[in-house]
């Protein structure tokens, strides 16, 4: 297995009669930035929860960093970092304290923590705010810090959940540069988002619709095959049958499912 960071094979999860994730298969190569896209309720969160060992698959299997997500959950958790859109940092703690805390949780030595804290604060340009509570930093700065903290134990794979929603365009680009830098150093990055313009930053994307992978490829390939200008356009086409005007919208409304455990 040369450089496969994530291997997913016919992964399936049902909740009662409802199939949230329906036989999905894909590989992610080490150092790749892989976009995992889908509307709310498409099954993204359920799939991710299986990949990080929080939820048992109903059938199928997956290996993350070479470890089985069912049988080797602890090794999986040590090999990954996770940054959620909502909560990743302790807001009452300073950037320095957050880094130290997460370093401790992941069992880094005191020396490692000191050295990585200094390096991260410098890389982020945070020397002036290293001892300021996180709650008083702008959203974009918190997001950049959260990403760096998710990498503190140098995981092989990092999962990002809608990392740049609501962030200003300049900070957003600094954020994507951090992602590219991590990928360039061999870290695999899996980004889940329902904002299709974020998808365009990924090396490859998959689009989930109703529990299945409806499309997968580089953004350029997918746009070329479908003859569309943007991933957003392709997404709308996949998620809704071709139609126009009111009829199209009314049918769309029928596709919306009740909350199926996806709280994003």
């Amino acid at each position, binding site marked *: 297995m040369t450089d496969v960071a994530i291997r997913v094979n016919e992964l399936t999860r049902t909740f009662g009669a409802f199939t949230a994730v329906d036989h999905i298969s894909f590989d992610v190569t080490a150092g790749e930035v892989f976009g995992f896209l889908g*509307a*709310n*309720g498409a099954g993204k969160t359920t799939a991710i929860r299986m990949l990080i060992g929080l939820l048992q698959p109903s059938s199928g299997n997956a290996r993350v960093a070479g470890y089985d997500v069912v049988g080797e959950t602890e090794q999986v958790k040590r090999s990954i970092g996770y940054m959620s859109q909502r909560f990743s940092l302790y807001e009452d703690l300073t950037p320095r304290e957050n880094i130290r805390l997460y370093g401790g949780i992941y069992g880094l030595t005191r020396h490692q923590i000191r050295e990585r804290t200094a390096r991260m604060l410098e890389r*982020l*340009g*945070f020397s*002036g*705010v290293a001892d300021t509570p996180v709650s008083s930093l*702008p*959203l*974009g*700065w918190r997001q950049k810090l959260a990403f760096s903290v998710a990498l503190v134990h140098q995981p092989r794979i990092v999962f990002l959940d809608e990392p740049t*929603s*609501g*962030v*200003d*365009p*300049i*900070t957003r*680009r600094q954020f*994507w*540069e951090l992602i*590219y*830098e991590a*990928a*360039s150093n061999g870290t695999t990055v899996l980004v889940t988002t*329902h*904002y*299709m*313009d974020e998808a*365009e*930053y990924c090396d490859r994307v998959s689009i989930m619709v109703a529990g299945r992978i409806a499309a997968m490829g580089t*953004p*350029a390939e997918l746009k070329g095959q479908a003859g569309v200008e943007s991933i*957003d356009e392709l*997404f*709308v086409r996949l*998620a*809704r049958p071709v139609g126009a005007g*009111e009829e199209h*919208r*009314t049918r*769309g*409304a*029928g596709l*919306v*499912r*009740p*909350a199926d455990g996806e709280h*994003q």
Partner: protein
Amino acid sequence: MTDAVTVESLVKRFGPTVALDDVSFAVAKGELFGFVGPDGGGKTTLFRILVSLLVPDSGRGRVLGLDIVRDFRALRQRVGYMAGRFSLYPDLSVEENLTFFASVFGTTVAREYEQIKPIYSQLEPFKDRRAAALSGGMKQKLALCCALVHRPDILFLDEPTTGVDAVSRREFWDLLGSMKRGGLTTLVSTPYMDEATRCDRIALMHRSKLLGVDTPAGISGGFGRPLVGIHASDRYKALLALRAYEHAHSVYPFGEVMHYTDARLDMPAERIASDVEGFLVARGFRDVTAAPLTPTVEDTFIARTASNPGNNA
């Protein structure tokens, strides 16, 4: 008078924080007018002032000819407001929420049915479902219905598409477009630059200030430099290489490509493109392509805020 909204030098502070810094603009009747900018830029504070929920520290504003401070009672009868946070009753059903908001304004759902029908028809199959159990897109449509049920003359929508998926986002903007054709004046805010193109005019907001007001085409056209999109095999290393190029003015990732502007202002875009392509190829980068691009609203936003101190952390 044809202006639905006029605002002059609005200022609002919260303690030491300046939330709105000398903001002035006017919105014409029937316009679909967007406020575009990141979180924390002042959009919500501005909307809350315009619907009379907050009082400005200084400056003046009129909505539908009514003073936003003195005439607040009359104003509240005539504006529809959709707050950024989901502000309906989660334990009430779709229908109960709508009935409640109609009754607050002394009307009934039946009487206003034609007004809300285009949106409500999509919600009706779920009218007995609790609001809390709706998907993000459906919640936003219900909130829009509740904001429209008293036939407002002007609508204020604060980030109606935040947290809503791409399909629902598009449907929501389609609805705003059809309401505009019906003559309704709408002010809408969004952190997403791509949504700006659906507005007649947009105001760029950043750090409590208005950076400019123009049509989407005018904003893109105001970029001021030739823009080149560059693709190369190793994106991150190419980015660093370009940044170190002696003629580079700005280089930043933009979706699949990098956006590049050159410091040589007299050079046409085609020549810049072939120049940087040659630069990257000579440094061993593979799959290099470079081509002139039309700037987007987001490019303009970046250019106008880049010089702002504090953006480099």
